[in-house]
């Protein structure tokens, strides 16, 4: 019998230890109900502790921007936590500046709520909603850019042109969890039952692959928004806008917003760069708008036009074209503001051209893919 006594004793001890760990875990990790005070009492939430702040807020209808759905890889869900929650985690610091760390800014997806918390968020986030949308149409604009229009049904979205929404991509193929990604809206703010976005295929991208290969007209999809502070200023300065590819989105929205609001006393120059004609889109629509509205000037440019393109428009990198136009047509003495949408590289290159042509850095606004 002794051969069975030893294994049984070990099994018994292991079972007791496991039970003990389970009991201790329930006691130690039971944070009970916690109160989250938002913006000094503007809103107070009572939540069950033990979960990340980002998820607890969204469960209560407060949506912070998040392009990764809480995986700690986008750095978008920042908020100020005025209660002491201990030092910043190594998973947060790569996304925060020294100033933000000093100001107690945290990534809300990395803050586990264990006690009552006080936080500060931008007021406009109270306007953010989650929408159960339906795909109304999908259109190929180029070989790698699709225009997707969502119908919000009875819901409406209030936004300023230039803002963005997050689409919630469900699990598909080998992708297990949901994923959120941010896209600038290209739709007219007046048309508030619809949201239009332009999505360029990113090789290996979870969300863009889903949209390009799986999403169909009639499908349901959740959207969260609006977010962002990229928008037209309320001055009369000449707007100098630059984009390429899906960076078209916020400018299409801004131009239509100006038309809808009958803003006719402000010049807008829109520089749109592509390599060849196959990368160019919305040409006819932009040309038609230009013809109808004398304040709007559309300057498409190809950096490497192909022979078969028969291109007669401007040629060169969009930064070179921009430089030429500011000097020769707009005039360096004109009161100008810069508006940019694109990658950090494109933004930096345009910043250099604009500041060299008398546009102060503080008058250059951008929607940076960062």
């Amino acid at each position, binding site marked *: 019998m002794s051969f069975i006594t030893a294994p049984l004793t070990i099994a018994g001890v292991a079972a007791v230890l496991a039970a003990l760990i389970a009991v201790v875990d329930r006691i130690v990790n039971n944070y009970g109900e916690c109160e989250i005070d938002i913006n000094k009492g503007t809103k107070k939430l009572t939540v069950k502790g033990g979960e990340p702040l980002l998820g607890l807020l969204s469960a209560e209808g407060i949506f912070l921007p998040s392009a990764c759905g809480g995986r700690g890889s986008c750095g978008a869900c920042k908020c100020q936590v005025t209660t002491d929650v201990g030092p910043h985690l190594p998973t947060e610091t*790569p996304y925060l500046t020294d100033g933000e760390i000093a100001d107690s800014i945290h990534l809300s997806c990395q803050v586990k709520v264990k006690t009552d918390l006080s936080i500060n968020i931008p007021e406009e986030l109270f306007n953010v909603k989650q929408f159960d949308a339906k795909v109304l149409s999908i259109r190929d604009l180029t070989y790698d850019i699709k225009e997707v229009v969502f119908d919000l049904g009875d819901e409406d979205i209030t936004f300023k042109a230039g803002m963005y929404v997050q689409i919630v991509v469900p699990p598909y193929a080998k992708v297990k969890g949901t994923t959120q990604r941010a896209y600038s809206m290209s739709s007219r703010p007046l048309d508030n039952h619809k949201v239009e976005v332009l999505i360029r295929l*990113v*090789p*290996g991208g979870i969300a863009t692959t*889903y949209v390009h290969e799986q999403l169909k007209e009639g499908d349901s999809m959740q959207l969260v928004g609006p977010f962002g502070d990229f928008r037209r200023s309320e001055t009369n300065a000449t707007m100098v806008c630059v984009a390429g590819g899906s960076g078209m989105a916020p400018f299409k929205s801004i131009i239509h917003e100006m038309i809808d609001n009958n803003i006719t006393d402000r010049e807008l120059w829109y520089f749109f760069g592509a390599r060849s004609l196959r*990368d160019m889109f919305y040409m006819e629509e932009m040309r038609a708008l230009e013809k109808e509205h004398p304040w709007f000037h559309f300057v498409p440019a190809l950096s490497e036009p192909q022979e078969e393109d028969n291109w007669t428009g401007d040629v060169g990198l969009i930064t070179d074209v921009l430089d030429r136009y500011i000097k020769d047509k707009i005039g360096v003495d004109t009161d100008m503001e810069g508006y940019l949408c694109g990658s950090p590289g494109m933004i930096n290159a345009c910043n250099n051209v604009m500041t060299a042509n008398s546009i102060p850095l503080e008058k250059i606004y951008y929607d940076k893919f960062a």
Partner: protein
Amino acid sequence: MKMTPNMRKAQENMAPGVITADGFLGDDKRPLQDMIVESEELLRHEGIDIDTVVQTLKDLMEEGRNGLGEPITVDGKWIVQTTEARGHLPCPFEDGIYRKITTVVRNIEKEESIMYSTISLHLLQKHHFLEGKGSPFRLEPVQLKKVLELD
């Protein structure tokens, strides 16, 4: 070959849908350690020095950035497109985060291309991993030599 817990975790992170849609392993089901040993052997066999090739790929990525998101011809030999998407991606080995920068290099004359990202370059330089066979971002040594004209 026996794998360390870190290596096992890295292989889990490389599965499709964890960090990227397609993951990093392609169709290869072998332990990650075996794939890395094979990567090193393949590179040696083709006479490719890792640091040199990574530097060439980084240079082309930078040249591609001059296209401001659109494709650009480099040295009359390659069409290079470097694109940047919002956000970052963590390395599957959990030793850093990288901007989502992707470069496609097409050799005009040979009509062959390679695609890589900032993470691909880190995986190759630091971990000697070319990505699994069938992965869209795999840097196949023979293909590397052909596209970059390393002979």
